[in-house]
């Protein structure tokens, strides 16, 4: 996977995307605050590339993925996919655009309707978005099953009759059914056995090659992101703290959080493992309903400065294609 295979056309453009969830409490369920799950993120995804989105659990990466696909009504910001602004499109109109953008979910068990057969699950979007005949649809479903490596004979089975890996293949087949351009893979391998993870990731790569797909690959598994992503964005508490090409990010992380995150990646070689200089972060991730003043990371940052506690760091391009939001570089 070389950089030159990618085009320079921006497929997805995310600007200042905010997704805040209201908190209701009290007898009358009054709105008393909000969870700032995604608090102003911006990035572009180029056609044909894979953008990895990493971060700890609860940092807002899954929410970001769903918000980009407008599975939520976003609070603020703009999302352009294939040149069309969808940030403020009402849901009914959005439906017509769904074929372009699809999602592969984390939990293949839960994300498949247990009462529908595999053929029905894969074929359902075709009912809605195409005018194929019954036989055509059936053929399309079967060919999709072939493409994701599922036995055609299982078309009439129900999701619970499959293994985890197979279920994720169903999820992928379903996502592919409408020939999308952009797929958000939300931790697609987190719920799978390690032995199966590689198979699924390879399948995703093969399909990308075959159909020219663009992925937003959300994961907390840095080694898997390193394997699949072309560029990587790091999120912390609802914000993107660093974004760079894979090589740059892994070899030369700038943001203290990225550094800490990378230092936590296990080293398979026990000899090297001992030499790894780990950066240990103190304390817990602050609540997204009440983020700290200034830099979100200031409560745990090993290199914290006075300014961090009062002012939000601007996002700056410290090298071409390498963006970071940290007072150290501004």
């Amino acid at each position, binding site marked *: 996977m070389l950089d030159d295979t990618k085009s320079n056309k921006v497929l997805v453009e995310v600007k200042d995307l905010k997704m805040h969830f209201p908190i*209701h409490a009290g007898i009358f*369920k009054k709105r008393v605050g909000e969870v700032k799950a995604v608090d102003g993120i911006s990035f572009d995804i180029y056609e044909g590339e894979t953008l990895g989105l990493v971060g700890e659990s609860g940092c807002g990466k899954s929410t970001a993925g*769903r918000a980009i*696909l407008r*599975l939520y009504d976003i609070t603020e910001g703009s999302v352009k996919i294939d040149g069309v602004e969808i940030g403020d499109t009402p*849901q*009914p109109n*959005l*439906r*017509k*655009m*769904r*074929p372009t953008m*699809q*999602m592969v*979910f*984390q*939990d293949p068990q*839960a*994300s*498949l*309707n*247990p*009462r529908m*057969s595999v053929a029905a699950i894969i074929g*359902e*979007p075709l009912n*809605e*978005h195409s005018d194929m005949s019954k036989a055509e649809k059936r053929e399309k479903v079967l060919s999709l099953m072939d493409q994701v490596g599922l036995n055609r004979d299982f078309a009439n089975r*129900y999701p*619970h009759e499959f293994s985890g890996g197979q279920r994720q293949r169903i*999820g992928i087949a*379903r*996502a592919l*059914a*409408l020939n999308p351009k952009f797929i958000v893979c939300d931790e697609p391998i987190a719920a799978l056995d390690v032995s199966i993870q590689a198979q699924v990731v390879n399948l995703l790569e093969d399909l990308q090659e075959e159909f020219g797909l663009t992925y937003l690959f959300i994961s907390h598994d840095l080694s898997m992101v390193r394997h699949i992503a072309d560029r990587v964005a790091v999120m912390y508490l609802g914000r993107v703290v660093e974004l760079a090409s894979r090589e740059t990010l892994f070899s030369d992380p700038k943001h203290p959080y990225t550094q800490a995150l990378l230092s936590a990646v296990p080293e398979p070689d026990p000899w090297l493992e001992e030499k790894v200089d780990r950066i240990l972060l103190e304390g817990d991730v602050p609540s997204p309903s009440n983020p700290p003043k200034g830099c979100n990371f200031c409560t745990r940052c090993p290199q914290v400065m006075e300014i961090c506690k009062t002012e939000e760091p601007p996002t700056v391009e410290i090298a071409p294609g390498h963006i970071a939001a940290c007072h150290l570089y501004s």
Partner: protein
Amino acid sequence: MLHYTIRRLLISIPTLLFISLVIFLLLDLAPGDPMASIPLTVPPEVKEKMREALGLGEPVHIRFLNWMYQFFVVEPQVLIDHIFGTGFAEGKQRIISFQSRSPVMAVVAERMPQTLWVVGLSYIFATLIAVPIGIVSAYRQYSWFDQLGTFISMIGFSIPTFFSGVLLIVVFSVILGWFPSIYDTTLEVTDWSSFLQQVKQMAMPVFVLTLYNAAQVSRFMRASMLDNLNQDYVRTARAKGMSERVVVLMHVLRNSMIPVVTVIALGVPNIFGGAIITEQVFQVNGLGQMLITAIYASDAPMVQTLTFIFAVLIVLFNLIADILYGILDPRIRYD
């Protein structure tokens, strides 16, 4: 599924026999005397003779076997005779009520129509109302509709029918005079005016029971919908670009109905149990009222027969609920 059903039916035979024995022994051990309601002016010797005439002089096991024979052999024969005009049960002793000295099953048949009309209809209404309310309440959680639904359900749940029933009577019968306060079981619907009459007299008891049942079912429906609305597959369906109608009705509702359908099925035997209190308040005199008067009068054969019929229905509807579960949920297979 067929094998499963047959196996379950076979298992239920010893279960039911055991239940019938337990009911019988409980009734036998319970204090109380069918002669207790007879005035003190009737001398004890006469009461003793009456007790003997009721067959209470026989030992327990003989009475139990007699009851078994009557219930499992004679009563079915009577039914067959009734349908085909045969004469199998000729001259055989049926189960006789202590109170009226008439066959228990004849009384059950007599009481069935009003119970089915009032309790059954209210159950159907309750389901028809509660399911949409539950769906909308869950879909628009915390909206004013949901808050109102919650409030009404709370009322339906927490206000006992003997209170709401009497309240309705005071308002609609005593003050407004719209509806009769007493149900006429002899009314036959033959024309428009008698039909109206029937609707009027059913209005209040049906309303009270509907409110009560709907409160339960709607809460159940709402909870089940909420469970499913937050499932990933719903997001999947949305991501597929399915319309909200399809998402809610095809994906969420169909999955949410699985537990609700079984709850509804398990509630069906209660229809036959009648609504003891509501029947009493409105003098509907159905099976519930019959059971309670029989209990007061220590009418053992009637209580025994009724409770056993309920037991059969409960076992049966448990089975039906399980089978429905299997049909509705592909994850469950019994064979």
